[in-house]
């Protein structure tokens, strides 16, 4: 078979060395009664056949619209060098850096990624990655529980409803009380999201102060691209900053792989889940990097670990690091300004719809249309537009409410064309 090198001759030589007659003998420890009878697995396909088949499936997905779909996942421009560099096989075919001397590329990149996240958020420590933005909410909640030694989790209404659903699923069997609100009294933490799921930008500094007075933690779920402009979790006094990192270098990919970002303060670092790389030296005094504070992790602490996470999203963290490095200090700011300005421009073109946000927005906003949002969206689809997320479909709004996201990729002409089409469809 294609990916098995062993020839008939090899096999004979190996069996002879082992001292058995056939490969079957090596399965003798499986009780014969337990051997498989049959399965419904189709015959294999050549590489060429697989490629055609995948292309055929892909052709049944449509990615050629002008799209305003966001809702936590955004179509930002990914620089060409991100794929080129993260596609180097020394990165993607390696595993967790168990042998640091052979894994300095991985370890230094994690260290640099952690640094980038700290610089982005104004936090002190970041981990090497979590699974995604939703599981990061759960990890932040349990981390808060460990620190505050309380079991109430307050989820602010700004938080993505999917994250809330995921939190409930994950915590279903834990002794946690999950409430929606903003009262830190008696809570382990208050979890906020900025911008909110509906796109509103807020300053949670005052809430952070109230949290700290109440000995609760402030957890801020942020949108990485917004930090090219928006006040940071660190500046707001967050104890834990978390994010869905998709927007900084990950393709939309129908849901993954994405990147769970988590950062915290020095005082909390020993309660943080996930791998952490730290700088050190070798015997000759050369700088090197290792995984550190491993006593937090499952392979050492088992039942007492901070989390069960093992495989994480390291390659996505590398992509984020490359993405941020290519945009750099000024470019990253430029992207945020473009997103915001273009969104404001579109907003200005949608006078016929009611803006639902109760404050400024960054690059996404919710509107109430004169007609059901799903209806408008269906009609616009025919014209090549994905109009946005009908909020009722995710339980986050009325039938006529539509969540519209704009990125640096939208040209003014695209915004104009969309505004015109939406107006025509919605106001008929």
């Amino acid at each position, binding site marked *: 078979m294609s990916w098995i090198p062993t020839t008939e001759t090899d096999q004979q030589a190996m069996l002879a060395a082992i001292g058995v007659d056939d490969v079957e003998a090596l399965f003798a420890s499986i*009780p014969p009664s337990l051997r*498989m009878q049959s399965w419904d697995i189709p015959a294999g396909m050549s590489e060429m056949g697989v490629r055609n088949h995948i292309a055929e499936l892909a052709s049944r997905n449509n990615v050629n619209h002008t799209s305003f779909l966001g809702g936590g996942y955004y179509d930002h421009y990914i620089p060409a060098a991100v794929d080129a560099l993260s596609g180097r096989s020394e990165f993607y075919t390696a595993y967790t850096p168990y042998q640091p001397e052979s894994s300095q590329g991985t370890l230094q990149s994690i260290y640099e990624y952690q640094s980038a996240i700290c610089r982005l958020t104004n936090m002190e420590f970041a981990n090497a990655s979590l699974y995604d933005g939703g599981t990061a909410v759960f990890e932040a909640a349990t981390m808060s529980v460990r620190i505050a030694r309380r079991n109430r989790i307050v989820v602010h209404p700004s938080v993505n409803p999917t994250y809330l659903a995921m939190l409930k699923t994950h915590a279903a069997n834990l002794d946690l009380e999950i409430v929606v609100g903003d009262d830190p009294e008696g809570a382990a933490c208050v979890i906020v999201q900025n911008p909110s799921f509906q796109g509103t930008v807020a300053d949670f500094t005052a809430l952070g102060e109230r949290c700290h007075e109440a000995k609760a933690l402030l957890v801020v779920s942020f949108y990485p691209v917004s930090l090219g402009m928006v006040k940071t979790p660190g500046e707001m006094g967050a104890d834990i900053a978390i994010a869905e990192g998709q927007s900084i270098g990950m393709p939309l990919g129908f849901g993954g792989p994405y990147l769970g970002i988590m950062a915290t303060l020095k005082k909390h670092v020993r309660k943080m889940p996930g791998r952490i790389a730290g700088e050190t030296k070798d015997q000759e005094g050369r700088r090197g990097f290792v995984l550190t504070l491993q006593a937090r992790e499952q392979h050492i602490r088992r039942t007492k670990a901070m989390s069960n996470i093992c495989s994480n999203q390291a390659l996505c963290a590398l992509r984020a690091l490359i993405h941020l490095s290519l945009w750099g200090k000024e470019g990253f700011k430029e992207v945020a300004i473009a997103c*915001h300005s273009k969104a404001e421009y579109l907003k200005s073109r949608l006078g016929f719809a009611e803006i639902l946000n109760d404050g400024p927005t960054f690059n996404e906003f919710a509107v109430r249309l004169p007609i059901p949002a799903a209806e408008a969206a269906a009609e616009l689809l025919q014209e090549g537009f994905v109009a946005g997320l009908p909020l009722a479909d995710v339980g986050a709004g009325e039938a006529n409410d539509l969540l519209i996201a704009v990125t640096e990729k939208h040209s003014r002409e695209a915004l104009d064309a969309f505004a015109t089409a939406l107006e025509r469809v919605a106001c008929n």
Partner: protein
Amino acid sequence: MQLIYEKSQPGRRALRLDALDVPACALPAELCRAEAATLPEMAEIDVVRHFTHLSQRNVGIDDTFYPLGSCTMKYNPKIAEVAAAEPGMSQLHPHFSSSPTYESECQGAYALIHELERQLAEVAGMKAASLQPIAGAHGELTGTLLMAAYHKDKGNTHKDTIIIPDSAHGTNPASAVMAGFKVVEIPSDADGTIHLDAFEAMLTDNVAGIMLTCPNTHGLFEKDVAKIAKLAHSKDALLYYDGANLNAIVGQCRPGDLGFDVMHYNLHKTFATPHGMGGPGCGPVGVSERLLPYLPGPRVVPDGDGFTLATPEKSIGRIAAFFGNYLIAVRAYAYLRHYGDAGLKEVSRNAVLNANYIFARLKGTYKAAFPGNFMHECIFTASPQAQKGIHATDIAKSLLDRGFHAPTIYFPLTVKECLMIEPTETESKETLDAFCDAMLAIAEAVDAAPDSLHAAPVSTPVGRLDEVKAARDLNCACL
């Protein structure tokens, strides 16, 4: 090597956007950050060289044999990378699945998800599978949450404990605890497997389930697995299968047929998706009939000519925002479709052949941790060498100098000075021989040149690193 931040120069740029084609807007100052994030300021060429150099300080499967036990470091086919890079796959917005309006736009993805879940279930003799869990440990958590849901549904409120062998991977107990269970550890027998009597003694009424790895992390098939299942089921306890070692038995026997109720797959192991320096992986769960109603939702289900979403009635809900690490699943799907029926059976046969060949070549020189019957990996203890001052870690470092990645060492915790060697089926006899030759040469050096082993590695970009210093002078970010 310099940090990327040390290469930054004020004012230097790589990427720019075109001039803004709309009026520039700003948020109110009080909502803005005080200063721009100090991201690197570099030219593209220097970013490219930086990461090219970092890659050159790394070793992956494409470079060399990587026999990391329990991790199934098999070759990652290039066609799978091409599949995942298809724009129709990689650019697909996940919220297409959030609104019936957009269902028509992602039918290809639905078809793939549905067929992959079906084939995964079929491979393991399960009734259904869900791609939602993002990695193996996440699959374990999902699986134990499914167990919890089952017991809650059945009113088994007393069932609060999960039995886990001492040889199990650390994620097993950690996941069980995250799912709200107590954990009791069952010791392995001298032969490396679970003793039925010991198990029976532990199987009290409050046992909700048992998490097994089979073959276990000693590389041994749990001979009494069918009896364990029967006993467990007699007490309405559920059996969890840690699929990390599925590569040993794929096409030979199926967890479902063995009596397991719930399991996770590691697509980044058995199904050859890249390990990505630590992730992303993909850890689908599979369930037997018993747990079908509780599967995470929403699920892709057939609907006329196409597919739609539906959530099982008693679903535990969303464990991922959408369908897990979809683009990893696409790679695994490409792999599965390539091998198909006959091919998959060759996978396990050759994985087991390779491990036994290594065992045969090394067992005269290294001390086997168990009498034999190894399946896809073989486990030695370097205790005899350790008495001479050469530890498993020294052997590992010396392998690095000889151009190989090291096996897993010091895991499982049940074996002192453990060397856990998993070759996988994708390695040629020549590679296995070269590795064995290196291992034998190292064994000779234990007496002949012990200093060289302590000094190793000398051919890597850095030598052995001071882990104590790292933890003491905690420096985890350049600020």
